[in-house]
């Protein structure tokens, strides 16, 4: 006797009603069907015929359910009710929108009901989807915050920056003051245009001093950005050019944190770098100043004088922001400025020969390679979602196989194929909605968890949130997901062949050949996607290893670094000893625990700074010849030991190297090798590449290369000058100790304050922090891709195990016969294993093709390893084989243990 109660419960989409009422209806109808079935058997029909006879009483379960539903409404209006019912029924029969909506509601209730009865299945599918949708929502919200939103300025598309690089070396070379004035006066390409410099300043409070980020700019800069103050006003051009005006605009943050949000601050005097200035305005909270790779907080806006700026056309220190005239193409603007540049090159060959003009959109400057970083991540995240979809599709397929008898019965009894497909799609829609909701929660939680590990190299991350756009994205992803994983099983189910499924005899669990094929295809695709992901993760891991394995500095975890900015950065390149630095280091060297103390104008790994061209002995100055860029770094004698830079030849610097009339310098290995290949650099002379050299020095030592531009940047030639108050305004004190370097922070603070209480110490970190900071971006993406690969592997393991177990159950009968006919049990084992391995091999082959396709996008994210690395491809392929082997093992062993008698009796 079939279980009619269960059959009714699963097939009759009743509307919500009291549980007792519902139970009554189900039980009563089940009894009715059972009576009909018994009567049919008594008439001599066989099992299948009797079942069809009984079920034939209910040709359409949906209509039946809705008839029962309308019967539940007590209709008190006597005869009138019947007419109303008839209209209702007629409408339902006639179809139309109302029918569709009624069906949708029915389908949804039916789906909820069936899913509710399979909590494990529901949890597995919803959790899988939540992983996929959550990851995509999180990464999309990062993409949205960083890449997709327009910059927060007026007409951001027309904002550009202007640079004057050399023709041979397209770089971000800023402008000299005279060049800026000439471009401004001789070309009319901008609606508004201004110049600025970045300064770090010491802001005095009542009892302490803080170091704050400032921008010195012409009013044109702020006009181009189209920003306005929240309180007070901005400064005027007259104020900018008048050194006596001494005005300043402060940020909202500074106003709140340092001045208690006092509106009376406007008009008051504050002390910046020991100089009193009048606050004229306060910027809005949302104001950010654009810069290379970020939108930064600028706490102070000071006027910048360009008319009285240095007349030296070789002093490139002005950055610019301009808003192009409406309708003017970037190329034509560049051409017009190029005309001015060519004129300047003729007039001033020593400074301007071979120099050109380059216009870079502000957006490009701010976003840098954020797109290159994020798009591959977004791609990997999308792959995870696709994997999740396929996994859920496989689960539905395997379960759908169990329901194919039901589908066949319903199809035989007149439920249209379209209706069946719609029912299945509604079910996947319901699962997808749950998955989307859970995914959103997961994303919200994940973003909070990830916040700490996000790389600082991504601009605009401080404005990360799940807003309307992100929610819309999640909804779209959810709907798309439901369609993808719903259509695969629905398509397979709609092709259920009625006759053989009913005839086969097994009431449940016999899938069509077609479903089996679809399932295999899904598995192979999953293997291929996992292969691509795992390969990517492996390559990222190797890149991270390559980038962090080298530590050119001796034991950086015992190094303390702290920065400060002297009040008045000197711009005269005075080659004199810096008494302040010498005094400070002398005091610090005396602090117990300090093994070595030094100072530098540039930190390793932290990027470019002061640089120029250098002539080595035998070369002569020629304005038409461009020399390779060399980084200039000023260091005190003790810095090499403190930082742990290795000496290769000669000696380190000594105090007298600056003062004895002959400037002596140390060069890095790259400089030595490039300038004097095969020769000893010690004793060689170098000078600046200018008409009148501002330095002329003798090399006394060669030190090991220290990476300057991050962990992965190309090593640049570098000269270490003895410490003098140079063009670079930053000072970095470096201390080495045998103990915990952070234990020296109080001493460092104390000694700095003892020499000048108006100097603030900032950016205190250890040498290890320096490496850490540089590795952060790579570590973040490696972590994410690695996490994805692990999730993918888990999904595929569960998938293979489930599908193979299903496959074994499906063929238990056949295997039973094989064993009964005398087949070796291990041959049965071999058949199952071979099927599993065939799937993974096909998947790996497809994955190899996928890896080749992904190579281009992935390549730019790798370091020290190619995108199609044989070792990685081989290792990942072998690993996947192992995973598939492990996951197939249990089902295969079960196949071996199949008892032929039981298996055949199941028929």
């Amino acid at each position: 006797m079939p279980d009619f109660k269960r059959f009714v419960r699963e097939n009759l989409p009743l509307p919500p009603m009291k549980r007792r009422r519902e139970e009554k209806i189900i039980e009563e109808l089940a009894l009715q069907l059972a009576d009909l079935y018994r009567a049919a058997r008594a008439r001599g029909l066989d099992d299948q015929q009797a079942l069809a006879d009984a079920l034939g009483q209910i040709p359409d379960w949906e209509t039946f359910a809705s008839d029962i539903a309308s019967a539940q409404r007590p209709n008190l209006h006597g005869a009138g009710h019947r007419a109303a019912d008839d209209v209702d029924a007629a409408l339902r029969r006639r179809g139309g929108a109302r029918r569709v909506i009624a069906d949708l509601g029915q389908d949804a209730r039916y789906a909820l009901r069936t899913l509710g009865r399979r909590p494990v299945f529901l949890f597995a599918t919803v959790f899988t989807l939540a992983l996929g949708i959550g990851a995509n929502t999180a990464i999309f919200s990062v993409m949205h915050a960083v890449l997709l939103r327009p910059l927060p300025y007026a007409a951001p598309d027309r904002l550009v920056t202007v640079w004057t690089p050399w023709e041979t070396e397209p770089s971000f070379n800023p402008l000299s003051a005279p060049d800026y004035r000439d471009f401004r006066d001789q070309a009319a390409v901008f609606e508004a245009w201004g110049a600025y410099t970045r300064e770090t300043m010491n802001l005095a409070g009542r009892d302490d001093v803080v170091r704050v980020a400032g921008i010195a700019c012409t009013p044109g800069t702020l006009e181009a950005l189209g920003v306005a103050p929240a309180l007070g006003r901005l400064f005027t051009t007259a104020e900018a050019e008048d050194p006596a005006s001494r005005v300043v605009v402060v940020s909202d943050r500074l106003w709140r944190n340092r001045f208690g949000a006092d509106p009376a601050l406007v008009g008051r005097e504050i002390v910046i770098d020991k100089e009193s200035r009048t606050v004229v305005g306060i910027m809005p909270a949302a104001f950010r100043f654009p810069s290379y790779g970020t939108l930064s907080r600028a706490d102070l806006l000071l006027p910048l004088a360009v008319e009285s700026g240095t007349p030296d056309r070789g002093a490139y220190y002005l950055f610019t922001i301009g808003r192009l005239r409406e309708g003017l193409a970037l190329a034509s603007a560049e051409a017009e400025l190029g005309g001015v540049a060519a004129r300047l090159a003729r007039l001033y060959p020593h400074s301007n020969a071979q120099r050109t003009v380059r216009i870079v959109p502000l957006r490009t400057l701010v976003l840098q390679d954020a797109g290159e970083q994020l798009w591959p991540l977004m791609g990997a995240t999308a792959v995870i979602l696709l994997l999740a979809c396929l996994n859920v599709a496989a689960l539905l397929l395997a379960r759908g196989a169990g329901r194919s008898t039901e589908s066949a019965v319903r199809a035989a009894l007149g439920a249209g194929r379209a209706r069946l497909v719609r029912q299945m799609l509604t079910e996947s829609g319901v699962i997808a909605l749950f998955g989307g909701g859970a995914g959103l929660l997961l994303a919200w939680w994940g973003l909070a968890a990830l916040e700490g590990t996000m790389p600082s190299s991504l601009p605009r991350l401080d404005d990360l949130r799940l807003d309307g756009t992100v929610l819309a994205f999640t909804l779209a992803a959810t709907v798309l997901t439901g369609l993808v994983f719903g259509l695969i099983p629905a398509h397979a189910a709609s092709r259920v062949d009625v006759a053989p499924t009913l005839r086969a005899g097994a009431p449940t669990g016999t899938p069509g050949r077609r479903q089996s094929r679809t399932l295999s295809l899904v598995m192979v695709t999953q293997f291929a996607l996992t292969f691509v992901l795992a390969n990517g993760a492996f390559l990222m891991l190797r890149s991270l290893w390559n980038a962090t394995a080298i530590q050119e500095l001796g034991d950086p975890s015992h190094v303390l670094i702290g920065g400060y900015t002297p009040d008045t950065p000197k711009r005269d390149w005075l080659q004199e000893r810096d008494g302040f630095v010498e005094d400070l280091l002398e005091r610090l060297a005396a602090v117990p625990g300090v093994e070595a103390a030094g100072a530098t104008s540039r930190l390793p790994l932290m990027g470019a700074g002061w640089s120029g061209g250098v002539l080595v002995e035998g070369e002569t100055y020629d304005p038409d010849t461009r020399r390779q860029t060399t980084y200039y770094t000023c260091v005190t004698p003790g810095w090499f030991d403190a930082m742990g830079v290795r000496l290769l030849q000669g000696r380190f610097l000594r105090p007298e190297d600056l003062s004895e009339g002959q400037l002596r310098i140390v060069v890095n290995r790259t400089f030595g090798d490039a300038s004097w290949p095969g020769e000893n650099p010690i004793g060689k002379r170098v000078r600046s590449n200018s008409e009148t050299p501002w330095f002329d020095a003798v090399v006394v030592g060669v030190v090991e290369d220290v990476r300057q531009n991050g962990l992965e940047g190309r090593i640049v030639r570098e000269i270490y000058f003895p410490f003098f108050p140079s063009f670079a305004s930053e000072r970095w004190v470096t201390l080495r100790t045998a103990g915990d370097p952070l234990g020296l922070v109080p001493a460092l603070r104390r000694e700095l304050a003892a020499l000048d209480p108006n100097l603030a110490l900032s950016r205190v970190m250890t040498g290890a922090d320096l490496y850490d900071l540089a590795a952060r971006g790579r570590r973040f993406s490696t972590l994410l891709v690695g996490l994805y690969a692990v999730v993918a592997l888990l999904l595929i393991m569960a998938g293979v195990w489930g599908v193979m177990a299903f496959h074994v159950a499906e063929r238990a009968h056949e295997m039973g016969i094989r064993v009964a006919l005398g087949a070796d049990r291990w041959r049965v084992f071999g058949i199952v294993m071979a099927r599993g391995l065939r799937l993974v091999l096909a998947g790996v082959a497809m994955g190899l093709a996928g890896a080749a396709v992904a190579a281009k996008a992935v390549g730019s994210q790798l370091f020290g390893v190619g995108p199609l690395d044989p070792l990685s491809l081989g290792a990942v392929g072998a690993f996947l084989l192992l995973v598939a082997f492990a996951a197939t093992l249990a089902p295969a062993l079960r196949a071996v243990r199949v008892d032929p008698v039981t298996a055949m009796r199941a028929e």
Partner: protein
Amino acid sequence: MFSAELKKGSLELIVLTLLDERPRHGYEIGQLIETRSRGQLQFRVTSLYPVLYRMESRGWIASRWVERAGEHRRNYYSLTAKGRRILAEEQRRWRAFTAAVDLVLGG
């Protein structure tokens, strides 16, 4: 055979009449209609039960589970007082209706 409309219009009356004799369960009602009409009237499960449920929710009939030894428990329907009144009214209307139709047909 008879048209669906004709059958549908009479089903409530038929069921009420059968229940007037004694309480019966759903399957029994279906079987009785078929045997008493000598197989000329057959109602599917999908027609019978909605009618039963509708009359039940209007309070014409009431149901309760009854267990008998050696059998499944079954849901028995019986007429309520209101049901009895409706039955009388419906019977009267049916007879009047059929008599009127007979007159027209020249019976």
